[in-house]
């Protein structure tokens, strides 16, 4: 069991800025954000392709959410092959930096030519790289909301889970899926 404050950045020295992510205190928050979003997007890093309970929980969540809500997925790494084998449809493979470069461009037409996104859900990026990418997004695209789905606190997101152990976090993800399923 990890006994740390939910809203401490996971790596101690990684201080947040003058604003910091709201901690996802209940699944309804994420459920409502996804339902309300007009143009949501998943960005999945390579750590999601690993074995173990964390990857399983995330893949289960993403598979369900993309199926129900038809959210496009950008895979940033070679791990897409693992995701595809588990039934997740990858819309585009694009590196994290290249993706961020487009998300901060208000003129970008998106993966489908329909325009910029309004909510980005991150998972599976290495912590420090995710921290930096989210900082770039917070400053470069201030109107874009971001949620991190990993079980560690990312201060540069708009919404983040706190630092949690696997089981309570998995239960939260399952609860969000159930809410989305209900519609």
């Amino acid at each position, binding site marked *: *069991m*990890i*006994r*740390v404050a939910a809203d401490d950045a*996971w*790596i*101690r*020295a990684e*201080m947040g*800025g*003058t*604003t910091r992510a709201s901690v996802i205190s209940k699944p309804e928050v994420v459920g409502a954000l996804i339902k309300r979003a007009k143009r949501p997007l998943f960005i999945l*890093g*390579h750590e999601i392709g690993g074995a173990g309970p964390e990857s399983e929980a995330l893949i289960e969540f993403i598979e369900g959410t993309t199926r129900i809500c038809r959210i496009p997925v950008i895979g*940033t*790494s*070679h791990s*897409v*092959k693992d995701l*595809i084998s588990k039934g997740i449809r990858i819309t*585009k*493979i694009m*590196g*994290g*930096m*290249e993706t*961020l*470069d*487009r998300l*901060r*461009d208000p003129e*970008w037409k998106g993966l489908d030519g329909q325009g910029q996104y309004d909510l980005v859900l991150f998972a599976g*990026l*290495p*912590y*420090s*790289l995710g921290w*930096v*990418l989210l*900082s*770039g997004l*917070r*400053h*470069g695209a*201030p109107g874009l909301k971001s949620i991190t789905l990993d079980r560690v606190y990312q201060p540069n997101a708009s919404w983040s889970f706190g630092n949690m152990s696997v089981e309570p976090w998995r239960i939260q993800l399952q609860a969000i899926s159930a809410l989305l399923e209900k519609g």
Partner: protein
Amino acid sequence: MYIRTLRPMIVNRKNVTLKLSEAKTASGSLRDLQVSVGSVRGDHWDEQEGPTPFPSHTDLREWDRTLLSKYKPLYLPFCDLCCLCTYGKCDLSGGKKGACGIGMEAQQSRIVLLAACIGAATHISHGRHLLSHLIETYGRRQLLDIGGSTIETEAPIIRLVCGIKPENLGDLEIVLDYCERQITELLAATHTGQEGDAIDFESKVMHAGMLDHVGLEVADIAQVSAFDFPKADPDAPLVELGLGTVDPTKPVILVVGHNVPPAIGIIDYAREQKMSSEIEITGICCTAIDLTRYSPEAKIIGPISWQLRYIRSGLPDVIIVDEQCVRADLLAEAQKVHAPMIATSGMNCAGLPDRTRDNPDAIVADLVSGATPGVLILDPEKVGEVAVRTAVEVMDRRKKFRTIPTPEELIELAKRCGGCQECMRVCPVGTPLAISMQQAGRGDPSALASLYDTCIGCGRCEDACNKEIPVHSAILSAADEQMRSERFSIRAGRGAIQDIEIREVGGPIVLGEIPGVIAFVGCANYTNGVAEVAEMAREFARRRYIVLTSGCSAMAIGMYRNEDGQTPYEEFHGRFDAGGIVNVGSCVSNGHIAGATIKIASIFAKRNLRGNYEEIADYVHNRVGAVGIAWGAMSQKAAAIAAGFWRLGIPVIVGPHGSKYRRMLLGRKDKPEDWFVYDSRTGEKVQTGPVPEHLFIAAETPEEAMTLAAKLCMRPNDTSRGRSMKLTNYIDLYKRLYHQLPDDINLFIRSQADIPMTMKETILPILQEKGYSEQPIPNPTLLKSQIRRPKE
């Protein structure tokens, strides 16, 4: 007399040159006046001088802006605040400006400029110390000799930037004078109330990078010439690498850092005393590389991340530190293993008493008795004597005392772990320390041992542990057998690339028939251990790229064995040719990597180098398929080295931690309007596709880095045969690593002749679906000045 100068006046202190582009006086006017006294400028060089000898940062501003219009900065702020002056702290988030008026983007570029200035100043100061020492020892007239008759272009960067052809050590002083003045100006630009434009900051970053490369070249050509290092030798000897190569029965000296004269003092003293075979002289980081260039019997322990593990192993009896990348707590670590420490550089005095003027007998006595834990000695020869004598005398006293727990002690220590995960929370690599420690506490240290390969040796975990477990030492204990059996080899740094090598491969590189030149450089801040670097280097060498390397990356490549038990340096040749893995040397030898690309323009394409930066950078950017990979880049020096490559238009890829440099330079392949060149024959604007797509990018995984590198080797000048070969490698790598085809193939095909022969059936349907733009292959340039017959 009233004199008005329209361009900056250049006056060199020692060999005086006065240059006035235009001067008006009461009695008349002068144009292009140049007076030289004892100067090297043009003495034995009939090449016509280009437009920018000794350029100021504004002289090349237009070139920088040309690059930056294609590769726009992507900012990744590390902090919302500016706290550099007493107006602040100022919150720059959300579009707010600081009290001085600066915005977030300019502030980020300003910090990048500070980093680049620190890095460049470090190399230039390194060069200055080295050069001063060499001039004191050998005299100003000591001739430069980089490779005998194999090298005519002895200093391509200095020729290009400064417009001079240095012949002896004294000539290099002028070059450093210039660099020091320029770096001071750049640093001044970061002061509050100076530069406020992000792109102008970026231009200055590139200037700092270019100066850094000049400093690198000065340092390495000086030491190669004076110390008789391998001179552009593709068959430089293989030397031993790894902690397991050290004979623990002998007195062991460890040198750490970058500036080699004190280490050479040790070698020389041991030779004079005929003790070379009785002591072990070992090194970590770039001093180690340069040590083995001087004496192949010396041993390299490993990259900078090996400092704690080697010292705690108890093997070194005396620790010598010079400058750069030396841990700030080495004195405390040395004391724990009862090893005296000798600091040898004004850059890093370590709080120790200056004993430079003392009798060696007295210094040795104090070090051996423990009267002082260490000393500062600023005389390399005296360091040599004191280090050798102290090592011999202290060895019996300290009996290789080590601070790594025994297996029994490890289990007892590990039982203290309560699983709080604080160690994991501070670990830059995020290793599962707590769970592994608890497993060790139950008697199974295997999980802890498995962390040895990915640990970067920072020791943060130990400070975080509230149970006072020496976590890093615990990992070393668990992996003790592996650590002691590290025995590898590395080819000693060869120095420059020969002119004949450039002649032979210049054509195939420029035409694209050698698919690219990939340089693995930089520090050891890896996210997954050293093996990834070796695997990437082997992949490209097997694919017949030319692989260059230096410094800690060169060591990382050596710390690998293939299925036949060969290290990459045994598996691949050391020539600058397809399929080679070419170790040029230490950090300062990176100048030879940039120099090789410049020499392609000079030797193969016969372009003038002399003070002709823009034209040559334009040539390199558009024609030489070179890419740098700094997978573990950590330092400000690495930032400066990268910036030097950016100004030459050479893309650089960094590992995930490289994102903390807080700014990328990215192209947008989805914007066709960004990708054009002029055809220098006609002046016509020609679409080229996104080649090379980025100038600076962090990759998340080695798989991303490798596919990016293969792609970034493409250039507008590629012939169809060359483009087809580059595409083959890009597509093949992508398919193997991602299990699918890349979705941007159509952007790189200019005619059907570009399609790889074996992939036609796959690619033609893609082109039919997505379309592609049929384009001629231009004689590419981004400079209007290079257009021979402008289109009406």
